[in-house]
């Protein structure tokens, strides 16, 4: 077991290394923004473009040989120096640190809820296979998968925001924050709080992550992200559980006198949960990260998805690289956790120790 874990960790490290290398090579090919800017400046100021670019290259260390720059890049990545964002005019690390919490705000509840609800529906559907309930659940799942997230988001926004006025249309990024701009769970603030910009009222209102106003503006994005995720989880859970519904050991359990509920929760869900783990951690994470792009654009949530989206449009190279690398590393770490969990949960796995 110990060796198995060590082997898996080494593999994950190796995979990260490969990915970073590829990223470096690719970024090396992309026209450098700073050089382009220097070129532009030189042209405007009417100095020799060649010399200016050369000077800038030297300043940035781009004139050094490939392997030295590669080594530098790797060291920087591990030291947390991920480059500079020209759009935000601050280090990429800070951009990530500021935007990721916004994505987690609706991403975490969406992952948790969709996993729980999707698994439950999938199991239910599998146990009632080929009945009307199963057909209804499968149809709903099909529906959930087919609907494009961004379109669904816009429709909900129009219906619940514009027509019914139940939720705000604009996303207020200051509500989950305290007056000084730090994150807070729940506190009260007066009308001088940035969230209430240009609003006049007496007394205090709630701000913070758990404040009613914040929860209200999270409902739609969470819901939109969930629909697709629930449907995928449900389909996987159903397929997994179906493999066991007719298994001989389920019949054994039934013949022992185990109740239907215990058969589903203990005898079907437990073995099915092992492969499900694999799928869920990897796929759902990917789905959520991917889905967050358009959801954040539609709802105007200043999360990592929106940052990445804008970075691509404005060619903010370093930020693009990191917003693409991040999900990749999340996936690698997710896979690692998955495999280790699999080994812990499934007694049949041979760890190949010794």
């Amino acid at each position, binding site marked *: 077991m110990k060796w198995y874990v060590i082997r898996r960790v080494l593999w994950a490290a190796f995979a990260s290394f490969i990915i970073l290398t590829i990223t470096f090579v690719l970024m090396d090919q992309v026209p450098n923004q700073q050089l382009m800017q220097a070129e532009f400046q030189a042209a405007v100021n009417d100095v020799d473009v060649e010399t200016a670019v050369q000077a800038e290259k030297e300043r940035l260390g781009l004139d050094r040989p490939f392997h030295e720059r590669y080594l530098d890049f790797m060291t920087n990545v591990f030291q947390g120096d991920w480059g500079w964002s020209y759009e935000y005019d601050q280090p990429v690390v800070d951009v990530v640190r500021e935007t990721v919490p916004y994505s987690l705000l609706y991403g975490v509840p969406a992952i948790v809820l969709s996993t729980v609800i999707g698994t439950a529906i999938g199991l239910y559907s599998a146990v009632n296979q080929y009945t009307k309930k199963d057909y209804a659940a499968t149809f709903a799942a099909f529906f959930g998968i087919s609907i494009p997230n961004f379109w669904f988001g816009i429709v909900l926004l129009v219906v619940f925001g514009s027509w019914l006025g139940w939720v705000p249309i604009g996303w207020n990024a200051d509500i989950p924050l305290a007056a000084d701009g730090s994150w807070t769970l729940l506190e009260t603030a007066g009308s001088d709080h940035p969230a209430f910009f240009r609003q006049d009222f007496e007394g205090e209102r709630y701000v913070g992550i758990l404040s009613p106003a914040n929860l209200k503006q999270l409902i739609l994005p969470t819901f939109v992200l969930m629909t697709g995720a629930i449907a995928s989880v449900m389909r996987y859970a159903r397929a997994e559980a179906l493999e066991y519904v007719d298994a*001989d*050991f389920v019949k*054994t359990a039934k013949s022992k006198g185990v109740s239907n509920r215990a058969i589903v929760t203990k005898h079907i869900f437990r*073995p099915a949960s092992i492969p499900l783990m694999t799928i869920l951690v990897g796929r759902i994470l990917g789905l959520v990260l991917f889905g967050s792009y358009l959801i954040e654009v539609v709802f105007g949530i200043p999360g990592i998805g929106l940052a990445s989206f804008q970075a691509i449009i404005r060619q903010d190279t370093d930020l693009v690289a990191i917003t693409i690398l991040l999900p990749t590393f999340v996936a690698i770490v997710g896979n690692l956790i998955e495999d280790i969990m699999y080994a812990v949960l499934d*007694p049949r796995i041979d760890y190949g120790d010794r």
Partner: protein
Amino acid sequence: MSTRDDTTDVRDVPTERDDQPLLKISNLHTYFRTDSEDVRAVDGVSLTVDPGETVAIVGESGSGKTVASEAITRLFKSPPGYIPEGSIEINGREITDLSDEELRRVRGGEVSHVFQNPQGALNPVYTIGWQIREALQLHADVSKSEARERAVELLTQVGIPEASSRLDDYPHEFSGGMKQRVLIAIALACEPDLLIADEPTTALDVTIQAQILELLAELQEQRDMGMLFITHDLGVVAEIADRVAVMYAGKIMEKGSVEDVFETPAHPYTRALLDCLPGRGGIGGIPGELPDPRSPPPGCRFADRCRHAIDACRTGDQPGMHRVGDAPDHTTSCVHFEPGRDSSTVLDAGSEPAGSPSPPDDLERGGRR
């Protein structure tokens, strides 16, 4: 529910047993709904098992023997399966109309099952100790440590060496034969009155088969437990059973004590089956196919494959259960055994496989045991 059926009224035959049977199945039907007509897997079966007795149901695959055995505790998948008619009594109590909750107490309590394929019959993600304990705790209020002790005892009884050290092992660490022993231990956990064993040795190696059969016979004797043994193998029947019922296309063709049925096989189907045994000359089985279980033809279900078939075989219902000779419990469902007809047309006929011309070099012809 009706307990009488004109085709299978074995109770007309006087018996010496006056104590209540452990299991009494009367006119049991089990159908499966399909898009078109129902599949009649079990179509009027009556059978009894006494305490301490082993009754074998023998038949080819598709004869309905497994469904019949699973219908007793309603283990078949439902829907589509259902019991349209018939009665099942355990120790005198009707169980076809029990609620799911009540039936759960019967399953694993009074009636236990052992199935054909031990490979998949244990849950791969739980230790065998857990799985035995689950059975124990479902039916008795025992503490974890008591259950553990009891599990060790059971495993020792079914011949698992060093049982206490194997409780925490997972199923994949056991061989097929050992798994079947574990499953038998699970089945016996709550001291059932009736053990239903559905081809418990078929999936095992020949040497292991004999061991498991021996173990079952031994345990049954110790516990004075009734056993319903489902098999396609007449050789196994001869070894383990006291009485035998031959099933074909959802109905019982012949039943009686093992001695009587093997000495004087009466039904043409039984006779054909016996001819297929190794060393009996016939090879390759009985030509022809089972009738369509959705719409069985009128008359005797075996008529299409029977070389003794006469016109009377193709009308009305399956022939009633008629006595064979003087044996008290030996009955068969064949028109030739109707009172007034000459049963010797069947009994004295040669033993070549039904419907096929006998090969000239068949030396074993006519040989009955």
